[in-house]
C-alpha cells in the first residue's frame, strides 16, 4: 500500500483553475521529483499537500486511510489542519527561518512549545547537516545554504512521514546549491520519503524514484527517473531543452 495517495486533486483561486485532476502515489522511502515550468502549479500542489491551502477537489490518503476529502473536509479549521499537517514537513524556497532564534533554537522551538526537550536530537540533526559549528548562530549570520540546511533540520526534527521541498536551492548560487543538494541526497539514501520540486534536473535524475512533469496545473507525464532522458510529451521535451540552454 502506498504511503501517500493523491486522487483527482483540484484547486482553484477564484474562477481560475490552478490544479486539475492531480493523481499520484508515493511509497514509503521513495523520492518523488516534481518538475515543470514556472506557473505550472508546483508550489500550489505542495501547499495543498501541507494544508497551507485546502484543495477543493479530490482526496488525500495516508497508508490507505483518507486524511482529507475535499467533498466534505473543506471546512476544516486550523486545529484539524494542524493535526493532519503533522504528517508532512515543508522546506521553503526562502528558508523562512525565525530570525530571533539561533539555528539550534529554530530546530527545537516547535517541540519545546509542545513541552518536549529534543536538544540532543536537534544537535544530531544539525551535525548531520554539516552545521556542528554553527548551532548558536543566528540566521542572519549564516549563508543561504546554511540557512536552508537549518530549515531542513527544523523540518526533520518533527519526524514527518513525508518531507516536501519547494525549489530548495532556487535562492542559492551554484556553490551553495551543491551543499544543500548533498544533504537532501543523504536523506534520500536514508530512505526518507520526499517530494521535491526542483529545476535541478541532474539532481532529480540522481535521487528520484519517481518523476512527475507538470504543465498548466496538470500532470502531463509521470514515471521513474529514466523519464527525464526519454520524455514522451512534446511540452516536457520543450521544457527540458529550455533548461539545458541556461
Amino acid at each position, binding site marked *: 500500500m502506498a504511503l501517500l495517495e493523491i486522487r483527482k486533486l483540484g484547486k482553484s483561486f477564484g474562477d481560475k483553475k490552478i490544479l486539475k485532476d492531480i493523481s499520484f502515489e508515493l511509497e514509503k522511502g521513495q523520492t518523488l521529483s516534481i518538475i515543470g515550468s514556472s506557473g505550472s502549479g508546483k508550489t500550489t500542489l505542495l501547499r495543498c499537500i*501541507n494544508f*497551507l491551502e485546502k484543495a477543493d477537489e479530490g482526496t488525500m490518503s495516508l497508508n490507505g486511510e483518507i486524511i482529507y476529502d475535499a467533498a466534505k473536509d473543506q471546512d476544516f479549521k*486550523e*486545529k484539524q*489542519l*494542524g493535526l493532519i*499537517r*503533522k504528517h*508532512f*514537513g*515543508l522546506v*521553503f524556497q*526562502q528558508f*523562512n*527561518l*525565525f*530570525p*530571533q532564534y539561533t539555528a539550534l533554537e529554530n530546530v527545537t*522551538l*516547535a517541540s519545546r*512549545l*509542545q513541552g518536549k526537550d529534543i536538544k540532543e536530537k536537534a544537535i544530531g540533526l544539525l551535525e548531520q547537516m554539516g552545521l556542528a559549528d554553527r548551532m548558536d548562530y*543566528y*540566521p*542572519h549570520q549564516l549563508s543561504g545554504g546554511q540557512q536552508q540546511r537549518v530549515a531542513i533540520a*527544523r*523540518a526533520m526534527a*518533527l519526524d514527518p512521514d513525508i518531507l516536501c521541498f519547494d525549489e530548495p536551492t532556487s535562492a542559492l548560487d551554484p556553490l551553495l546549491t551543491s551543499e544543500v543538494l548533498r544533504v537532501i541526497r543523504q536523506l534520500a539514501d536514508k530512505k526518507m520519503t520526499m517530494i521535491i520540486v526542483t529545476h535541478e534536473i541532474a539532481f532529480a535524475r540522481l535521487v528520484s524514484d519517481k518523476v512527475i512533469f507538470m504543465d498548466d496545473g496538470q500532470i502531463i507525464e509521470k514515471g521513474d527517473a529514466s523519464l527525464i532522458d526519454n520524455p514522451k510529451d512534446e511540452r516536457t521535451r520543450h521544457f527540458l531543452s529550455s533548461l539545458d540552454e541556461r
Partner: protein
Amino acid sequence: MFETVTLSLARGFMMTLRLFTLTLLFSLPLGLLIASGVITKKALSYPLRFLIWIIRGTPLMLQLLVVYYGPGIFLGRNIWGMGDEGRFIASLAAFVINYACYFAEIFRGGIQSIPVGQYEAGRVLGLSDKQIFRNIVLLQVIKKIIPPISNEVITLVKDTSLARVIAVYEIIWSGQSFIKSQGIIWPLFYTGIFYLLFSGLLTILFDRMEERLSYFV
C-alpha cells in the same frame, strides 16, 4: 528667586509627567486594540480607519477643545467634572484617543510587515496561531516598532504642553505665569531644561531597548 522658580516649575512638570504617563498607560493598549480591529475585523476596519483619519487629520489642540467643550455644547452638560481635575481628565481623554490612533498605525504597520512566510513556517511546524503570534511574530514586531514608538513618545513629552489650552497647569503654564506676576521671561525658557532632561532620559531608555534587540535582524 531661582529656587522659587525651580520649585514652581517642578510642580508644573509633575503635572506634565502625570499626563504623559497616564496617556501612555492607556493609549498603548488602546492602540493595540484598534490595530487588531483594523487588521482582523472587516466590519470594524472602516469606522476605525475613519476615526484614525479624523484624529490624524486635525490638530491635537483642536481635539482638546472639542473633547473639553463638546459635551457641554452638544449634550448640554459638562461630563468632565468640576475644576482642575475635570480639565485634567478631559485632556487625558483627548491625549489617549489621539495617541492611540498614532500607535495603532504603528502597530498595524509593524504587524503587517512580518512576512507571511513566518506564519506559514510556524503553521507547517504545527504551531497554533496563538503560539505563532507569541513566539515568532511578537518580538519581530516589537523590534520593528521601537524606533517609531520612541519618536511618538518623545513627541508626547512636548505635546503635553498643549493641555494648557484648557487650563491644565503643566510646566509651560507655570513658566508663563512668571511673566504676568513678576514680569520675567527666563522661567519660561528655563522649562526647556526640564523637557531636555526628560527626553534625554527617554532617548537613553529606548536606545537600550533597541540595543537589546540588536542581536537579530
